[in-house]
């Protein structure tokens, strides 16, 4: 099976996982959900690292990669921290 087809299998099956997991999320946590998905979509940082860190990388590609790493890192750090900040505020009744 060609690589692209394998990737397609992974993609389609992941869509189903996403569908069932997300429907389980409680509506009161929808804002943290958006923030958390923001953080994990920072996973494009992996792509950015691969572009930037290549041994034979040209300077142009290296600079482009630097900005990609920078932006994706903002997402990763900002996303997880703000999610954590929000979730820390949700508390049960003390009574």
């Amino acid at each position, binding site marked *: 099976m060609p690589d692209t087809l394998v990737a397609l299998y*992974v993609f389609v099956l992941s869509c189903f996982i996403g569908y069932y997991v997300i429907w389980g999320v409680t509506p009161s946590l929808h804002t943290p959900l958006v*923030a958390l998905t923001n953080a994990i979509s920072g996973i494009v940082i992996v792509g950015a690292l691969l572009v930037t860190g290549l041994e034979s990388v040209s300077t142009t590609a290296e600079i482009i990669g630097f900005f990609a790493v920078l932006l994706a890192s903002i997402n990763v750090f900002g996303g997880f921290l703000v999610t954590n900040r929000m979730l820390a505020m949700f508390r049960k009744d003390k009574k």
Partner: protein
Amino acid sequence: MQISVNFQAIAYLVSAVLFVLALKGLTHPASARRGNYLGMAGMAIAIGATLFGSEVQSYGFILAGVVGGAVIGTILAMRIKMTDMPQLVAALHSFVGMAAVLVAIGTFLNKREADLLNGVLMGELSAGIIIGAITFSGSVIAFGKLQGIISGKPVRFMGQHAVNAAIAIAAVALGVHFALTESMTSLVLMTLLAFILGFTLIIPIGGADMPVIVSMLNSYSGWAAAATGFTLQNHLLIIVGALVGFSGAILSYIMCRAMNRSIWNVIFGGFGSESGDAPSAVGEAVEKGVKSAAIEDAVYWMEDANKVIIVPGYGMAVAQAQHAMKELMEQLEARDVPVKFAIHPVAGRMPGHMNVLLAEADIPYDNVLEMDEINPEFSTADVVLVVGANDVVNPAAKDDTSSPIYGMPILEAGKAKNVFVVKRSMRPGYSGVENLLYYQDNCSLIFGDAKDVAEGMVTTLKGGGH
């Protein structure tokens, strides 16, 4: 230290599992924080496995980028006010979109250098760039509208849809041309057109539809990550992209359902614009036969009520009244009056916006109920206090078949014994529809800023009540 390709693949798999568990954690507030930590662990593993893999050889630029991003991200996350959360989210979406575009262009340059280009790869690159660019510029517009830099009014012109369709077709055609010929000109033109398309797609959408737009751009950012995964043949990116893409898509669907509109209607149709402030609110109200009440009147009913239900809306966020609400709740609970909060799915500017603001004010989540849970309770409540919400309590959505919002599920606040609506003016809600609730016999309006009114109520209650 360097790890093998197989070890790296296993690490990516572990990371993907952790991300699924992270999302699963959000099923309940009690497990949510642990979920977030699992997500962090997943990200750390993914980044570590990439850095120690055989492909990454130079670290200078990477280190600079990560450190810079960490500083900026941390400052943003710590400083942001909870009311401004939709703006932060929009900004972060734009970063993912831009990063996806940059990764695609960088990959193209690297592969061309190594002479590894082929049609399939370049097709995938084009898709990644188009989705990423639309996500970026669309999110920038959404950010501008949320932040008030650009008007929240929908901007429409003749033939808008035709123009959008033409841009989209041209961008795809250029992408195909690029995949077939490696033409740099086509690549650049395609990228530019995709950026323009992001602007023109989001600019016609009004402020009240922002919950849908924020969710939709959330979805796009996921698809952008997935497209990047296809170009890099990286399954982790594909998995995560699909998870995020579906998350945003489901949220968009939930938001649309809560407005009884289709996603197409939000993107291509939409209701009227926000109108200006009415000059004399009270005078106009009297003219229209609406009762206005003083803070003391509301307190009189609330202090002996069997139950008070508060319906917060975007107006509460604007007035920063959530902390005053908490004080009001405490004063009433001290008098054995139970207080509950009723949340409509589209209250605020993003999904779940009200819940976060109430949590920020330290209101326990057990007191905060969703529409379906709370609706049966309105008819047995002595007092409902509507704070900065409008369309979501308008009975016209149920009774008036000619109303533009007919069919939208609402909070049935009007069924309570007494309804008090805190409002700044008689201005209609975002839909531009007159709210029939105000003309009901059991409803009175308290004119004023939500925070001032709530604080006034607290003062009155502290002073021994009515």
